[in-house]
């Protein structure tokens, strides 16, 4: 084994790294949430649906909550809405909307036009609450358990697949 072997061996190692990276590429698309396993930050923010009132996230403690970050400007949110409506109907979770960087009137109109899946919608104009949740875009959703701990985060719209394969089992699993 002389020094001329070094490049070939180094290259082989590199290929292993790349091979693994390739295999894991699909899951690594999104920034993993740093908050999984940590308590969901609480917030008290203006109520979109009842102007003048406030939405207190603590009211949702004790049951499963899906905190969904959305905006009327967000194309994918429109696509996600039917899924949210279905999730709401299932009764498995409460839906707490966080209206992110939006205009109140436009947002209300959006809900009227597209259907309101939410049990409550809090308004986060400047994105402070969103930063607390480590949000970097919309739509993003956080599954919070009855103890108030974030157990999963979905970046991008929640697909049927994601609901069936990931979120639902988490909810049902804990119940049994």
């Amino acid at each position: 084994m002389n020094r001329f072997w070094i490049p070939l061996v180094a290259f082989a190692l590199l290929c292993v790294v790349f091979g693994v990276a390739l295999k894991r590429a699909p899951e690594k698309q999104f920034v993993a949430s740093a908050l999984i396993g940590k308590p969901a930050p609480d917030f008290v923010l203006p109520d979109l649906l009842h102007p003048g009132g406030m939405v207190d996230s603590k009211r949702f403690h004790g049951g499963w909550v899906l905190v969904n970050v959305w905006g009327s400007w967000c194309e994918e949110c429109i696509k996600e809405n039917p899924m949210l409506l279905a999730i709401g109907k299932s009764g498995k979770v409460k839906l707490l909307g966080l209206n992110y960087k939006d205009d109140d009137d436009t947002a209300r109109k959006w809900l009227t036009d597209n259907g309101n899946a939410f049990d409550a919608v809090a308004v986060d104009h400047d994105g402070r609450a969103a930063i607390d949740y480590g949000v970097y875009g919309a739509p993003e959703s956080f599954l919070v358990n009855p103890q108030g701990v974030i157990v999963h985060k979905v970046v991008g719209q929640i697909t049927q697949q994601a609901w069936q394969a990931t979120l639902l089992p988490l909810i049902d699993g804990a119940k049994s």
Partner: protein
Amino acid sequence: MMRGALLAALLAVTSLPALAIDTAELSDPAQQRRYEELIHELRCLQCQGETVADTPAQFAIDIRRQVREMIQAGRSNGDIRQYLVDRYGEIILLQPRWSLANAWLWLTPGALLLVGAVVAVRILRQRRQMLATDTSEPGEEESRA
């Protein structure tokens, strides 16, 4: 497919009236300098690999504001970094922090130069010796290049 989703999400977000440039500057020059240093170290997660300082994305604007406010509130640079790491993970720092896992990254330049120096010394010694028995001539003056 998931990638398409992310791309769409990015486009969706960036098509906000989101090219706003924030126009607030800190009055204290020392604070302004800290602010500028910090925002050049933070990654814009809506973009790809750009700093929060150099992009008009909405996320970047929010983070810049957060940094600004925390500086004004008297928090230290370390505090601010930790605050953001707690929420976004280490990925938001464009400069890996000193830790056992990351140490190798910071030691790389020095290590490479060290290896290079060792190699250089070996070769130089060897070739210097060969100079005694080497009768070849490098060629005329004009073939400098």
